């Protein structure tokens, strides 16, 4: 029913859209770190936006994908995209007009949380609760605000299955105003100053279509588990977190939330880029082109420009200082679409990712094939006084033409 190859990659904007939603990959390090950051701030009620954000994005996406499909076909579509995007496996046979009590033993969120942080006392798969709420709403023509979505058991808690109860009732998540269509910034791009950019980009163009859920509905790649997220879903988590922190902590809330989100982005860049740059594909296709450490950075940018995160480039690169840009980055576009203009830069994942990249290239032995794979190794590296600092200087959400970030020692 659902075929990823039916959706063409927008090479002009380095963007992939499925059912009206921009789609981007994130690794399990980032997603679990982000969730933990949000949940650790237990003084804010985060479950409302953890579920609501997923419900909102999936609702719009499935509304478009299920147009013209009957109930069974729509269920199949939902099952297919859930699996294809790497979230696990769901069987919607139990869903009917009254909702469902769905059980599954394959969950990206539960599995990866337990991998990173061990068991927890409360269920963690908020995304699937939101996904199922949206699916129910679309298939049975309900309003999101009339649905209650609860996870009653979780593999990450030591239970045998994840159980999600979806029914009409007192809504336990936030709902949001309608989003505006994505608006790209049509500005001239500063190209990566590297002769092999086109070769690398062309080699990996379309590679994203090979990264789909396996028989367990998971996408293991580059030493991490990837999930193909609705960009608005994952970004809204950040934005809502910052908003809530500002509400409770005042002006410092923005700073604190921002620092935490940067940290999550840093972890993502560190582990995922590290995985990419030590993979067989990298060694066989890219490494022959690399001569300097700066080439490694440019090559990575050339590769990730095929992933739908925007067009990454560098104004300046050296060990002590780098200035990166991303044209039509997924975070800013998302913010603008959902919230309009911002008074502060909103691209923490991007910026954290760039920082992680600099750390990898100049402060570790990655170019010699040695990668730091453990949490302890990452934390040790982060404590070092040699670490890089990040300043987000430009943001499309603030009215600029592109994202820009300065990273220095």
């Amino acid at each position, binding site marked *: 029913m659902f075929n990823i190859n039916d959706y063409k990659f927008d090479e002009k904007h380095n963007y992939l859209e499925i059912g009206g939603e921009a789609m981007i990959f994130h690794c399990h390090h980032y997603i679990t770190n982000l969730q933990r950051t949000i949940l*650790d701030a237990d003084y804010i009620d985060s479950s409302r936006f953890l579920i609501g954000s997923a419900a909102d994005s999936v609702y719009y996406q499935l509304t478009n994908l299920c147009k013209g499909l009957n109930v069974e076909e729509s269920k199949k579509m939902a099952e297919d995209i859930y699996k294809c995007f790497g979230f696990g496996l769901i069987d919607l046979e139990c869903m009917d007009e009254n909702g469902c009590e769905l059980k599954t033993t394959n969950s990206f969120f539960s599995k990866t949380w337990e991998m990173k942080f061990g068991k927890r006392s409360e269920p963690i798969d908020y995304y699937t609760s939101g996904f199922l709420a949206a699916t129910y709403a679309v298939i049975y023509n309900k309003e999101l605000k009339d649905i209650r979505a609860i996870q009653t058991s979780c593999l990450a808690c030591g239970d045998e299955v994840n159980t999600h109860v979806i029914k009409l009732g007192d809504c336990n998540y936030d709902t949001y105003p309608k989003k505006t269509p994505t608006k790209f910034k049509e500005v001239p791009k500063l190209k990566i100053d590297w002769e092999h950019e086109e070769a690398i980009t062309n080699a990996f163009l379309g590679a994203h279509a090979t990264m789909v859920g396996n028989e367990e509905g998971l996408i293991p790649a580059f030493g991490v588990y990837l999930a193909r997220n609705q960009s608005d879903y994952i970004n809204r988590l950040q934005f809502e977190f910052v908003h809530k922190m500002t509400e409770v*902590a*005042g002006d*410092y809330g923005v700073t*604190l939330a921002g*620092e*935490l989100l940067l940290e999550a982005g840093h972890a993502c860049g560190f582990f995922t880029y590290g995985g990419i740059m030590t993979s067989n594909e990298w060694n066989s296709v890219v490494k022959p082109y690399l001569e300097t450490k700066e080439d490694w950075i440019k090559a990575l940018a050339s590769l990730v420009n095929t992933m739908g995160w925007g067009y990454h480039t560098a104004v300046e690169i050296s060990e002590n200082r780098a200035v990166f840009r991303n044209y039509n980055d997924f975070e800013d576009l998302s913010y603008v679409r959902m919230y309009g203009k911002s008074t502060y830069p909103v691209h923490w994942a991007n910026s954290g990712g760039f920082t992680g990249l600099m750390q990898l290239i100049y402060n570790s032995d990655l170019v010699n094939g040695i990668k730091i794979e453990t949490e302890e190794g990452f*934390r040790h590296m*982060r*404590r070092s006084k040699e670490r890089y600092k990040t300043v987000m200087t430009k943001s499309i959400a603030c009215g600029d033409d592109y994202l820009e970030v300065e990273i220095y020692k």
Partner: protein
Amino acid sequence: MKSCVSSEQVSKIYHRLYEIGKSINETASTEELYNMACEFATNELNYEKALIFEHDDSNGWFKIVKSKGYNTPVEQKILRIINLLLSGEVIEYLRINGEPIIHTEKSPKKQVQSLVKSLFLTEAYFELFGGDSDIPYGLIVVGNGMNDASNFSTLLEDSILMLALGNFTVQLSNTINNIVFYKAWQSEKENLEKNIIKRTQQIEAQKIELETHRNHLQKIFHNRGSGIIIVDKNKVILEVNPKVCEMWGYLEEEILGQHIGILQITDQSAAEFREITFEKVLEQTCIEVDCQMEKKSGLRFWVQFSREVLNTQGDILWVINDVTELKESQEEIKKIHRETQDSIQYASLIQQAIIPEERNFVEYFSDFLTLWKPKDIVGGDIYLLEELRNKDECLLMVIDCTGHGVPGAFVTMLVKAIERQVKGIISADSTLEVSPAWILSYFNVTMKKLLKQEIGNTVSNVGFDGGVIYFNKKTNILKFAGAGTPLFYVEDNELKTIKGDRHSVGYKRSKMDFQFREHMIEVKDGMKFYLTTDGYFDQNGGYEGLPMGKKKFKEILKRNCHESFVTQKIKFINELKNHQKSHIRNDDITLIAFEI
């Protein structure tokens, strides 16, 4: 910066500092220390608010663990929310610069501007304490908020107060390090003590276990039915158990400390024994050897030595069993076997004696072959050729008695005896029409009666399959009757078969009154006849280990029937060998063939 405090106040402050310094040591809790810090900052130095942040290494956060001056619910709520990241701007700045941040309205610091506001402060002093520059232990924040400033000391306005604050932070830093290190040391000490106790308990348990095992081994050593000797690498006896003393008739003290040679070896020289046993010690992990020994009394006996290497010092353990009776039994068995073999060999001579001589065939046939191969020394197959009433008549029988080996041979004797009776009956009546069918019937009835097999509850059940041929060379008449045995013959280059009756002779199941069919052939010169027991074509062989089969037998026959019987015999033997290959022989083989 001037000082606005009086000398009395200064004295009080430093006296308090002194008291604090004296009262706290490494045994204090961090809770106590933080309390003192907040009290000092607010009571002695008269600042409005004080906060202590402590670093949580699991997530890199600095969380507020102690506060003073935060009284309202709103202020209290914020304390849970405000965290600082180790990698965040504020901590980062403090770590790298190693200097406190002092933020005032007149001299604001950008890094802490929003934080100060969120902490309900207008001016604040930030300084790290404890740990090291990579991972500080905590952060102290002292400052004033929105309340009436005249009630409180103002940051940067009084040098003595700033100095006192700085001094206190240094003291705080050193003390927290001492507390942390002391705790670690205590923990190490406790663990060490715990480990000592645990390890001692383990050793005690092991000792008990060893003692138990030792007791068990002692019991085995002393009570075992086998002798046990332990020798060192020089073959000096270290230990013996009572059984050894009993076996050889020595006292323990006569043996211990002696060379193993004291256990006198007869029949085998000590050198031979050494070669078999000690030299092979290193080659194998376990060896067994039988030897004849001599007791102290001079009596000889047999023992079986089993040996094991005990340890790396070369000590060896020998387990010895008296196998004299076993040896004697073995000798007896060998003797009986020899005698039995001799009997069987003699029986073979007897059986061969009743087999007709080849020259007898010459009297009646132009050419012939005889192939008689019992499976064992004696067998259940037999063939007989007897002259009847005159030189023109003969009776040829090829018989396959029940089984093979000795039992089969017994039955052949019985067959021979009955054959003599048959010959006697025929010879007594010159007008009697000799009938192979009647002969088979006679055998059938006679054997059943003799072996009491006409009733069903006898133990024995023997008989035979076979073919009987009556040949008169004067009249050129050949008569045949078969019991489970066919007659093959070649006439004008054509192979023909006369099947025997599907009825054996003499068995319990054989009918007493069975009438065998008789076949008569008018023979002419050149005709060739073949009579065989089933041993030939039932022989297993080939790639699949299956019997040769009658079909293949007939093919061999057809292929070679034009040859002389000398050649044919060789061909039959070779074909059998080629088919049989490495398979064992199934049965006795008898093949008789002749040419008119």
